[in-house]
């Protein structure tokens, strides 16, 4: 066993005897060389592909006669443009169908595995990667999507990239990057009832700012993170980019290993035990130093909602909007200084997205919804993050809970998080949304407004018809 470990040790000698973070160890293990520019040529262990940011990359490759270098390290699905009311082909939207066909052609020509809606494994790329066990600790992962940071929940170093970089990864399986600093973001203690991972990350972004993470990888830890499920850690890592950090990760632990055990692409049998040994070895050393460290107390975090046009503009639901200097945001949203988000009448409730579209999110929402009905003026959507999430939820009868309460139960995809399919806000509608961005126009209407919150808070808002404190609705609900 120990000899085997020696032979699989992928760290270059330079870091063997120095305390280091997982980020530094993974970076070193994947470094091909230092480029003449001074940047690092970094090997990408897993490349995830979707339909929106890749067709131009494949076109550029065809123009040059380049082939996909490592098709077996590349996996694709369709998520942004898929309709969620019916996924029957051809899609009614001609452009969506053209994008789907282009993805199918590109994957077929290159020998890349693609999960279409017919496969039973389709879903949001950041939901299916972990679900299938493709995402593993100490991997480098790239995807033409800024929410690739999600995969850090399993201890991967995962980069969101642009289309030209997608071309580079397809062609060379590498990226040219500058190393990042590492900020330890620690959350300690027990979260109060009604406070979820979403509230934790919104609070972190509120304090550190939407560009506070530029130049950093965020290493999340502390006893709160230790106690979290992988789903919860994914919600946190997912929104790292909303705080400016391209990468967020949590060191792998028993929770991570148990999550991965038995998944389709995870190592099996003895290989799994050897993998665990390597994953432990690649984790941050106890005496590692960080470029920065910030600490949060879980008990001080409250159910949180955004009031503005970036994810850093949030308040605890019970608080009034503080003296906000951003008049543009207040005017766009129709709020003023001193007003409360609580009590805001909503038009749409959206539960889904790579932030909060997993089974546990639907369970949290269903716990609130059971025995209630959506307010008559609210259009309420449940969009599972993947077909597997959808099946698991249906096996538990959650779809019936939601449908009986007046929610629409949809197919898997990104849907109203960014409105690239038919699911869009109309006019100045206000949406209570479990997604990740409240940018102007984000949910498909240029004047539409988004209030970000946890799935449980969205469920509560759907029922009340206005933003409420979910803790009030949890009274009497069994934990």
């Amino acid at each position: 066993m120990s000899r085997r470990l020696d032979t699989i040790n992928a760290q270059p000698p330079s870091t063997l005897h120095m305390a280091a973070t997982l980020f530094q160890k993974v970076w070193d293990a994947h470094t091909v060389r230092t480029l003449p520019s001074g940047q690092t040529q970094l090997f990408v262990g897993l490349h995830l592909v979707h339909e929106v940011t890749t067709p131009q990359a494949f076109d550029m490759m065809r123009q040059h006669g380049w082939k996909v270098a490592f098709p077996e390290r590349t996996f694709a699905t369709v998520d942004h443009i898929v309709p969620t009311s019916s996924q029957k082909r051809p899609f009614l939207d001609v452009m969506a169908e053209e994008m789907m066909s282009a993805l199918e052609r590109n994957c077929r020509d290159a020998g890349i595995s693609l999960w279409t809606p017919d496969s039973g494994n389709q879903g949001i790329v950041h939901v299916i990667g972990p679900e299938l066990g493709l995402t593993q600790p100490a991997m480098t992962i790239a995807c033409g999507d800024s929410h690739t940071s999600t995969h850090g929940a399993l201890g991967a170093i995962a980069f969101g990239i642009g289309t030209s970089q997608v071309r580079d990864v397809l062609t060379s399986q590498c990226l040219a990057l500058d190393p990042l600093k590492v900020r330890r973001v620690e959350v300690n203690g027990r979260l109060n009832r009604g406070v979820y991972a979403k509230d934790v990350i919104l609070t972190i972004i509120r304090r550190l700012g939407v560009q506070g993470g530029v130049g950093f990888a965020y290493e999340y830890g502390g006893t709160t993170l230790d106690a979290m499920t992988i789903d919860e850690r994914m919600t946190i890592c997912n929104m790292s980019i909303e705080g400016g950090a391209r990468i967020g990760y949590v060191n792998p632990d028993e929770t991570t290993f148990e999550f991965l055990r038995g998944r389709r692409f995870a190592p099996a049998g003895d290989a799994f035990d050897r993998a665990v040994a390597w994953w432990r070895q690649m984790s941050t050393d106890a005496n590692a130093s960080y470029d920065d460290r910030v600490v949060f107390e879980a008990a001080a975090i409250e159910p949180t909602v955004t009031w503005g046009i970036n994810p850093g503009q949030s308040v605890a639901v019970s608080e009034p909007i503080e003296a906000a200097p951003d008049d543009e945001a207040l005017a766009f949203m129709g709020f003023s200084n001193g007003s409360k988000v609580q009590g805001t009448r909503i038009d749409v409730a959206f539960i889904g997205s790579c932030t909060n579209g997993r089974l546990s999110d639907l369970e949290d929402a269903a716990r609130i919804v059971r025995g209630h009905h959506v307010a008559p003026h609210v259009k309420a959507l449940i969009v599972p993050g993947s077909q597997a999430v959808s099946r698991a939820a249906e096996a538990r009868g959650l779809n019936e809970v939601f449908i009986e309460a007046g929610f629409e139960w949809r197919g898997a995809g990104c849907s109203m998080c960014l409105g690239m399919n038919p699911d869009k806000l109309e006019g100045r509608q206000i949406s209570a949304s479990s997604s990740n961005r409240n940018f102007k126009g984000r949910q498909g209407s240029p004047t539409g407004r988004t209030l970000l919150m946890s799935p449980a808070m969205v469920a509560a808002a759907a029922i009340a018809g206005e933003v409420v404190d979910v803790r009030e609705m949890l009274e009497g609900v069994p934990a």
Partner: protein
Amino acid sequence: MSAQPPVPSPQPPVRAAAAVTNIAGRGLPLRGDDIDTDRIMPARFLKAISFEGLEGHLFEDDRRANAAHPFNDPKYAGASILIVNSNFGCGSSREHAPQGLARAGFGAIVGRSFSEIFQGNAAMLGVPCFVAAPADIDRLQGLIEAKPETTIEVDVATGRITAASTVVEASLPAALRDGFLSGQWNPTAMLLDHFEDVRAVAARLPYIRGF
């Protein structure tokens, strides 16, 4: 995932890009912090399999909502240097945003700060994003608003920005700067240069070896 590392076929050679040493032209001041890529290029324009025509949709929703938006103002027509404030290009990694700007003729962007992904994506298109002090950004924006005909010159090697008698010092990450100067701002060729090293890294990674 096979246990044996694959042996990729050698790729045809890459054409060298042109060096980007200086950018000169008229400026366009776009005030505001945290301007995200959804605003630069709304998602509905991503529903296409090419980048063609994106220059026609830059800030489309902001421009409709605000007739006085600088991208609507004919006095800035033909500008090639964009002057922005902080955290420009935050949010989505969509390259469609810098593609639209590059295709509209912008050769450089100067701002207080940028999202990392945006700055990297713009660099891949040969468009440097320079960082300057807030007071200098304000001076440049004010100058261009008052005299839009002013020619702005950006020297990549020194980061010096000259606009009539105003001179501002700006900076680029060293690797990006050197890449622009040497014509290696598109790293594909470098990444393919030592492909045996790529194979060697793949061959020693436990998860590729099957543990």
